[in-house]
């Protein structure tokens, strides 16, 4: 379980997070929504220790990680993987080498065992036979898939997704969502996703949280979240048109 308590962060003199209290349930997919520039990605980076809060605490199970450094922080990070907005694949490596990277560097694995595991992951994300390509030769959607394969290859307990569908067409966005949800159901990892894809996220998330003015304004299951009485949240989620609960359920069943 990830728990943030009173997290505050100021960047460039601008207060971004102003006392975030948030609990991420284990084994579920939680999506964080909010307007652009609200600090959703900043929040995500606090969960994995890429940023340290000015005030407050970040707990990963029984460990408070906000003041950890070096080896102790790396031990916690071994439980995580992160899919970045731009996939953050290493340009100088092929897709295969990118996915194999954590296995070779962290687990010191070599030879056929690496090949087997990487090819299995590439197949799961629909990139079988594309291992020899470089990231620059891939489309946006394929890069995200490769990033997802790299995130999954270490079989992490927690995966953070930073706007995984930004810049993709609706069909590709849907296929990425399906992939994330399918993998989450299959492997049971704890997923935290930052997304703007409303109403689609109501159909795939177990929980939805909204970041507003540096704080978590609401967090609930999708159906409950859509019944909010907060006019600002209502307006925000109604832009894309809320998904009727029946449709949401159908999407979830289809994915699983």
């Amino acid at each position, binding site marked *: 379980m990830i728990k943030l308590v009173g997290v505050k962060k100021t960047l460039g003199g601008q207060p971004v997070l102003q006392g975030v209290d948030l609990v991420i349930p284990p084994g579920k997919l939680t999506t964080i929504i909010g307007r652009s520039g609200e600090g959703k990605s900043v929040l995500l980076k606090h969960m*994995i*220790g890429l940023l340290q809060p000015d005030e407050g605490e970040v707990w990963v199970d029984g460990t408070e990680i906000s003041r950890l450094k070096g080896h102790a922080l790396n031990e916690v*990070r071994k439980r995580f993987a*992160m899919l970045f907005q*731009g996939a953050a694949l*290493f*340009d100088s490596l092929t897709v295969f080498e990118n996915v194999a990277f954590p296995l070779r*560097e962290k687990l010191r694995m070599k030879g056929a065992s690496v090949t087997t595991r990487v090819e299995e992951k590439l197949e799961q994300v629909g990139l079988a036979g594309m291992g020899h390509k470089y990231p620059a030769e891939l489309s946006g959607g394929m890069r995200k898939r490769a990033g997802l394969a790299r995130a999954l290859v270490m079989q992490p307990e927690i995966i953070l997704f930073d706007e995984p569908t930004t810049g993709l067409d609706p069909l590709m966005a849907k296929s990425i969502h399906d992939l994330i949800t399918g993998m989450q159901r299959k492997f049971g990892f704890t997923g935290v996703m930052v997304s703007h894809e409303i109403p689609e996220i109501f159909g795939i998330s177990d929980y939805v949280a909204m970041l507003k003015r540096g704080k978590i304004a609401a967090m609930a299951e999708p159906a409950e979240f859509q019944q909010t009485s907060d006019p600002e949240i209502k307006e925000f989620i109604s832009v894309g048109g809320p998904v009727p609960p029946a449709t949401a359920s159908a999407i979830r069943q289809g994915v699983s």
Partner: protein
Amino acid sequence: MMRMLERIGHGVLVHVGEMGRMLVFVVSSFAWLLRPPLRADQIVKQVHFIGYKSTFVVVLTAGFTGMVLALQGYYTLRKFGSEGLLGSAVALSMIRELGPVLAALMVTARAGSAMTAEIGIMRITEQIDALDTMAINPLQYLIAPKLVAGLIGVPLLVAIFDVVGIYGGHLVGVELLGVNAGSYWNSIESSVEWKDVYGGILKSISFGLIVSWVCCYKGFYTRMSAEGLGTATTEAVVLSSVLILVWDYFLTSVLL
């Protein structure tokens, strides 16, 4: 008056802070080098990039530097009837000063700027954050091999520069201007001491460190924009070049 003092004080504090950060950066990187795993493959790759790939431009520069030195030296020495000392003039200038300084400046222009750009792009596209999330220290994986490669690659290039420069001087002095070949080589043998060679090696090692240190640092802490990357690359080249010349003066004054 007070405002001016405040501004000067602020400027001094900013620069002292920056110097402190640079020092921590290089010390931490070398400290990470001592921890396993030893990334020998990365070091070899970087030596290839900094050293081997700079060979052509270094040979070209060295050849023409030696040639022009011989040309200038010949007409100056002829006034005193000392053309026979041409080899000595060319070799000492090359080994003591021009070899280390010009080779280091060429490496800065070719490999240093590329290092800053590469690391800067990795920062902007979150590839460095991705390393962090995989519990792989970027200083150990990315920076330390480049620092070691600078220490190895630049002295080797300087050795090539010296030899090619002396042969360039021979080409112009002996083959074109008719200086006796025996006196050219004899004057080199009688005037160049091991002290000169050691001094050149010491300079080249320290210049190698300056180039890789400054260029890696500027890339690592680049601002998150294309403009920031451009500025970082320019600053890296300018600062490295200036530091090479300043450090050369101090080192020469100690070595002489």
